[in-house]
């Protein structure tokens, strides 16, 4: 009941946002927020660190881009194809990766995603280094022309909200409870009779499919499918968003995504402002050093801020004494 009020406030804010802010940037934020939430389903709630989520994000983007441009399919069909592709890649990757535990699982996902990267680099249909450019947005259900930024924004918002709602539903379902049990104590879950590998695989595929949704939408919104979206640095970026926002919290990844993408886009401006206020000229070059700043945030988060922003906020609130009138 109260959660609904809080989320409603955010929804209203998002509904009016494009009138004050650049819609394309907002769409990018929404897609990355969904990506981070999908990733968190696997890391925060199942305890599996995948370093290869870019394969789903970027792979779906390529499939959707190819479908909408070369095959001339409509927007909805292209997005669905992207999601299905991501789920399939997730299935294949998951089947291999769940054979190992812990850190090996992570390394396998990284290696398989890198293999996928090279395939994307060399395959002629992905356009290699140039990527797929000038993607049209098409019409939604043949009716709504999406080349208008505002219309596209509301469609993206609807899809992101739907994806997010699915994640919330999953986490609170019996399936989600089993995932949490696996995260906390896998041997105990096994001893209780759960086919742990199957649950992990299912979570993996679901996470991949939703990451694919985010990727397919982002690609059509920005009009370009490129190698950047399948590079391992993209996988690292989504880990950072989740870590900074708060592992294992539901809204944490949203905060993390907004912060990281906002930082990426505005670091140059922040650098200018810092240079002007502190008269330290070096800050002006901050815009070129995005990865250094991101690296720093990573290091600080891992050492000091492990619960992430939302995690720390929740923990801090829990410590406050509740006054109840007697």
């Amino acid at each position, binding site marked *: 009941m109260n959660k609904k009020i809080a989320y409603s406030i955010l929804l209203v804010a998002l509904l009016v946002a494009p009138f004050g802010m650049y819609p394309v940037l907002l769409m990018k934020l929404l897609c990355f927020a969904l990506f981070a939430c999908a990733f968190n389903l696997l890391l925060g709630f199942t305890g599996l660190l995948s370093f290869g989520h870019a394969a789903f994000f970027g792979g779906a983007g390529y499939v959707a881009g190819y479908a909408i441009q070369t095959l001339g399919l409509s927007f909805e069909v292209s997005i669905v194809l992207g999601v299905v592709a991501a789920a399939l890649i997730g299935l294949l990757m998951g089947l291999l990766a769940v054979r190992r535990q812990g850190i090996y699982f992570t*390394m*396998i996902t990284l*290696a*398989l995603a*890198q293999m996928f990267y090279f395939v994307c680099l060399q395959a002629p249909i992905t356009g290699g280094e140039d990527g797929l450019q000038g993607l049209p947005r098409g019409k939604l259900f043949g009716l709504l022309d999406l080349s208008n930024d505002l219309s596209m924004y509301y469609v993206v918002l609807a899809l992101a909200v739907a994806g997010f709602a699915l994640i919330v539903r999953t986490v609170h379902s019996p399936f989600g409870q089993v995932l949490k049990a696996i995260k906390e104590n896998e041997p105990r879950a096994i001893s209780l009779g759960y086919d742990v590998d199957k649950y992990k695989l299912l979570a993996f595929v679901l996470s991949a499919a939703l990451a694919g949704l985010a990727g397919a939408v982002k690609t059509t919104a920005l009009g370009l499918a490129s190698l950047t979206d399948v590079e*391992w640095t993209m996988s690292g970026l989504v880990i950072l968003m989740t870590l900074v926002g708060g592992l294992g919290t539901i809204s944490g990844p949203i905060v993390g995504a907004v912060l990281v993408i906002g930082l990426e886009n505005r670091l140059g401006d922040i650098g200018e402002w810092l240079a002007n206020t502190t008269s330290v000229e070096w800050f002006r*070059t901050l815009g070129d050093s995005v*990865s*250094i700043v991101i690296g720093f945030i990573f290091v600080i988060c891992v050492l000091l801020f*492990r619960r992430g922003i939302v995690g720390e906020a929740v923990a801090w609130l829990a410590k406050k004494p509740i006054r109840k009138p007697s």
Partner: protein
Amino acid sequence: MEIFGIPLQALLSQLLLGLVNGSFYAMLSLGLAVIFGLLNVINFAHGALYMMGAFFAWMGLTYFGLGYWEMLLLGPLVVGLFGIIIERTMLRWLYKLDHLYGLLLTFGITLIVEGVFRSIYGVSGQPYSVPDALAGATDLGFMILPNYRAWVVFASLAVCLATWFVIEKTKLGAYLRAGTENPKLVEAFGINVPLMVTLTYGFGVALAGFAGVLAAPVIQVSPLMGSNLIIVVFAVVVIGGMGSIMGSIVTGLGLGVIEGLTRVFYPQASATVVFIVMAIVLLIRPAGLFGKEK
């Protein structure tokens, strides 16, 4: 003379190049295995530290006039020192936590180190020439052997085997292996385990630095030279399993050779062949070829 339609000269040259790459894989996966064995940390920064080794070699020459041979000794020492600082100030707080935090921390360090070098030196490589003593090539009759690349294979094998010897056959190595299995017990015997851990990290990292100095004349010294290499090394490590030192060496060299052969017969797959091998090994022997499931 031709084998399967490929002239012998071309085949052997690619094989040699494959051995050279394999030597780097072996040295880097060896360092990773040593660090993982004792610290339980996957050192993502290994690639960046390898890059630092190469850059220090270049810096030594450009700023201090120190030649290749001096930097071959100095480079790994400086990188090792840097590693010790990282371990003392940051890594040690994470030992009690889940593995993934160690990976994430070293990932963050990679971003910082690469970013700093990139902002100073740009992305294009700096040239570093082969030292005079090793320049040129020897004509063996059936192939022309570039001297420097032969040296790389020789030096890395020597270093890897020396490491293997120390760890498997000496008392110091015995303490290390015992410390991996049961640190509390080893500490009870009076061995300073934290110090051993720090020095082990420093050594593993110095191995990466050494590989970097070796690589400098062969590859463009660029800030990104470590990143793509490290992921292949991860695949090598998964294939070999991180159980044994000899396993890492053999796997690294073997995969380099396989990659070289692929370049001759089916070049399009050369970038992905290591990952394909990894997928196959995972299906047949999930613990890796030489691994013991931890």
